């Protein structure tokens, strides 16, 4: 019954989305006047979709094997958390999660957006309904999550053991919340373009959504990077895999948008550009979903491949993005230009930021899709790997980071005072670090060397915007910026340190033998079999010592029976100045084992930086949402 109720809720939600679209288009009364009805429908649609999703969660928790999706992706013996997370660890469930977030975002806009004029809000809610309608149709026609299986099997077919990890419980939903949060910026931009109302009001309406989506994307990408790092056992933290790029591209667009929307909100400038970015950011989310879900690009991430589904999502995104970009092309000429500014100004700095981020986005986009295009044109099979991305995108990212030394300190419109004194602290630190690395570590690459210098320079420079301010009265948004920029500095330091100083050892060892890596001496003691809840494993015992400290590491080679799969569980010892990373390989002929060891100095700064960036965003978001409202703001309640 739960499955049928869920399916009914899904159909009802689709009907409500159609109704919302019709109302927003002017059926049933003049536009603007019907805004109360549009709001009510949007909220109901969000709640009904949530019921459908809750029904699917309940089916997974109960391990109802008469539902095809549960039988194929779950198992009654699985721990509770993974049954729960299994809801979105598959194609249908993840698409239902996607559309649930989309509908809820629409509902929240309908409930809380009070500053925008009714016509623009109505058009935006119409756009949001059209987006939801397409994805409801996709679920109902091509990916029904509630399909029954008759006869029901005795038990399910398990779940990819790589995904049986606490990281999975939160990584995809976090990314999805971020992806779909950008849909609101998209819908608002569409509404603004339709109504010819592109100005600070729309930017202020967009801003909290962009911030929230960006915070979640940042968290999702950071967590995903760490998950790949410890779960795949390859010792790397970013592989430029198409699925990683699919999450990076919306993040790059959202980062650019986050900065340009402030110019529009504060100064009324960059109107066309900000609308473009709002469209591009969510377009990248849809393209990312398509790339992941269609299996069109070869990736280490295994997902169901189904041409019908791929074609369906492609048609949806071609329709939506195409219509939005055509609307942009037709309407943007009517948008007034904003206030003028000089090159050396806050606006100028933000334009430079936007251009660099856009170029990096273009580089990632081209690199991700180039294998596809090359095969279409010449029939050659090739893959674009880290050498391309690292050598092209990283220098630009460093230039961007170098601009951060000065950008945040510039004044709006025109900055006549000399810039050099304000950059001096950063430049001095950078020069000192450059000299130090040349003297102490002459053999490291150019990029890591400049990464260390710029990252170190950015640490003090990020704090400079606080100078001359009364700290008590500094808005939260400024604190957020300072924290996020500090996070960028920390992350760059981590990345540069990892590429410059990592030491790797791959050896065959027998019990009792010792291997030295970095400051560590690792003794390989023994390999013993152990058993987990639904796996068995061979576990190595390593005693790692340096100076006086001794730690025990237990890397495992795990075997899952259902489905039969082997995974490597890396053992990682984290200390303040880096991580010792151990992976147990295959047994060798001579009674030994392959052992892979890495010493990665300060690698943890990468994820700490990512976390700080997200915290900065959250702080800025809090500042935007909870700041003092104009008097009488709360006089109008919901649905008015």
């Amino acid at each position, binding site marked *: 019954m739960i499955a049928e109720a869920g399916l009914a809720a899904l159909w009802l939600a689709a009907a409500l989305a159609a109704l919302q679209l019709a109302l927003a288009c002017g059926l049933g009364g003049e536009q603007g006047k019907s805004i109360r009805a549009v709001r009510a429908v949007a909220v109901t649609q969000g709640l009904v979709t949530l019921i459908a999703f809750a029904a699917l969660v309940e089916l997974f928790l109960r391990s109802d094997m008469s539902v095809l999706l549960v039988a194929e992706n779950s198992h009654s013996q699985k721990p509770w958390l993974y049954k729960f997370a299994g809801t979105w660890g598959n194609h249908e469930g993840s698409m239902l999660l996607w559309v649930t977030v989309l509908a809820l975002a629409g509902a929240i806009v309908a409930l809380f957006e009070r500053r925008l004029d009714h016509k623009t809000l109505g058009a935006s809610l119409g756009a949001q309904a059209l987006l939801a309608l397409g994805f409801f149709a996709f679920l109902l026609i091509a990916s029904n999550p509630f399909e029954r299986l008759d006869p029901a099997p005795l038990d399910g077919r398990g779940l990819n053991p790589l995904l049986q990890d606490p990281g999975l419980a939160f990584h995809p939903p976090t990314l999805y919340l971020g992806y779909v949060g950008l849909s609101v910026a998209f819908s608002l931009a569409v509404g603004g373009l339709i109504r010819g109302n592109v100005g600070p009001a729309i930017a202020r309406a967009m801003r909290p959504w962009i911030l929230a989506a960006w915070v979640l994307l940042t968290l999702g990408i950071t967590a995903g990077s760490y998950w790949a790092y410890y779960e795949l056992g390859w010792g790397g933290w970013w592989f430029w895999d198409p699925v990683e790029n699919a999450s990076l591209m919306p993040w790059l667009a959202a980062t650019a948008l986050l900065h340009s929307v402030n110019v529009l909100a504060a100064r009324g400038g960059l109107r*066309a*550009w900000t609308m*473009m970015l709002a*469209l*591009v950011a969510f*377009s990248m989310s849809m*393209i990312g979903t*398509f790339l992941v879900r*269609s299996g*069109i690009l070869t990736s280490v991430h295994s997902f169901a491949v189904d*041409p019908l589904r*791929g*074609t369906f999502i*492609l048609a949806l*995104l*071609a329709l939506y*993005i*195409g219509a939005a*970009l*055509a609307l*942009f*092309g037709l309407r*943007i*000429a009517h948008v007034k230009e904003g206030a003028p500014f000089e090159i050396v100004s806050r606006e100028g700095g933000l334009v430079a930021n936007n251009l660099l981020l856009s170029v990096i986005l273009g580089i990632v986009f081209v690199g991700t*899709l180039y294998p*596809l*295009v090359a*095969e*279409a044109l010449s029939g050659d*099979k090739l893959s674009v790997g880290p050498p391309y991305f690292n050598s092209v995108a990283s220098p630009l990212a460093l230039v961007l980071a170098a601009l951060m030394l000065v950008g945040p300190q510039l004044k709006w419109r025109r900055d006549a005072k000399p810039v050099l004194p304000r950059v001096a602290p950063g430049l001095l630190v950078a020069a000192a670090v450059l000299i130090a690395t040349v003297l102490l570590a002459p053999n490291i690459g150019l990029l890591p060397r400049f990464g260390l210098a710029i990252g170190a320079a950015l640490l003090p420079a990020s704090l400079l915007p606080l100078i001359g301010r009364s700290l008590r009265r500094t808005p939260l948004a400024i604190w957020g910026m300072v924290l996020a920029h500090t996070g960028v500095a920390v992350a760059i330091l981590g990345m540069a340190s990892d590429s410059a100083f990592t030491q790797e050892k791959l050896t065959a060892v027998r019990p009792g033998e010792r291997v030295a890596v970095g400051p560590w001496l690792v003794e390989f003691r023994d390999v013993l079999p152990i058993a987990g809840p639904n796996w068995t494993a061979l576990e190595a015992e390593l005693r790692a010592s340096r100076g006086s400290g001794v730690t025990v590491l237990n890397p495992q080679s795990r075997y899952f029976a259902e489905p039969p799969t082997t995974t490597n569980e890396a053992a990682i010892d984290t200390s303040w100045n880096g991580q010792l990373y151990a992976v147990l390989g295959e047994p060798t002929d001579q009674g030994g084992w392959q052992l892979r060891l890495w010493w990665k100095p300060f690698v943890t700064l990468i994820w700490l930086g990512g976390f700080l960036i997200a915290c900065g965003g959250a702080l800025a978001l809090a500042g935007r949402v909870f700041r003092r409202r104009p008097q009488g703001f709360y006089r109008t309640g919901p649905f008015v």
Partner: protein
Amino acid sequence: MNRSLRFLPLLVLLAFVGAVAWRLSSPADEKIESKMIGRTIPAFALAPAVPGKAGLSSKDLGSGKPRMINVFASWCVPCIAEAPLLAELKAKGIPIDAIAVRDRPADVAEFLAQRGDPFERIGADPESRAQLALGSSGVPETFIVDGAGIIRYQHMGPIEPDDLPVLVAQWEAAK
């Protein structure tokens, strides 16, 4: 924004959709072209894999007549599946040599006793060196080397009934 640039993003999208639609409509071609075709066979000299049968060296190949080389192993299940088809190829008059990869003489002998032995020579390749030099990434694989010692064809994976005419035609062409 420049007027002529207004529709540029739309054009980029259309190009993307076009490329992707092409990809979806033409099913992925899973065949990997061998880079070894047209090259002289790399030099190797392998000891006999089973007692009583000659080993295989690259000098045995390229002696005027085209030959087939089967890269196999007794521990490889698909190799069992293709064994009767190799016997059929032998019955058609094609001389076949073999490389036994990471194997033990006793196991190879048992495999041949159970599954048939269509091979004239079998070289033992305990560390996969000859296999890797040949550009073979797994077992089973089958090569056709012409009379001049040049690799003419590489078949990856087990031979299936549909592959027999192709292999025979390639062998005829290598004459």
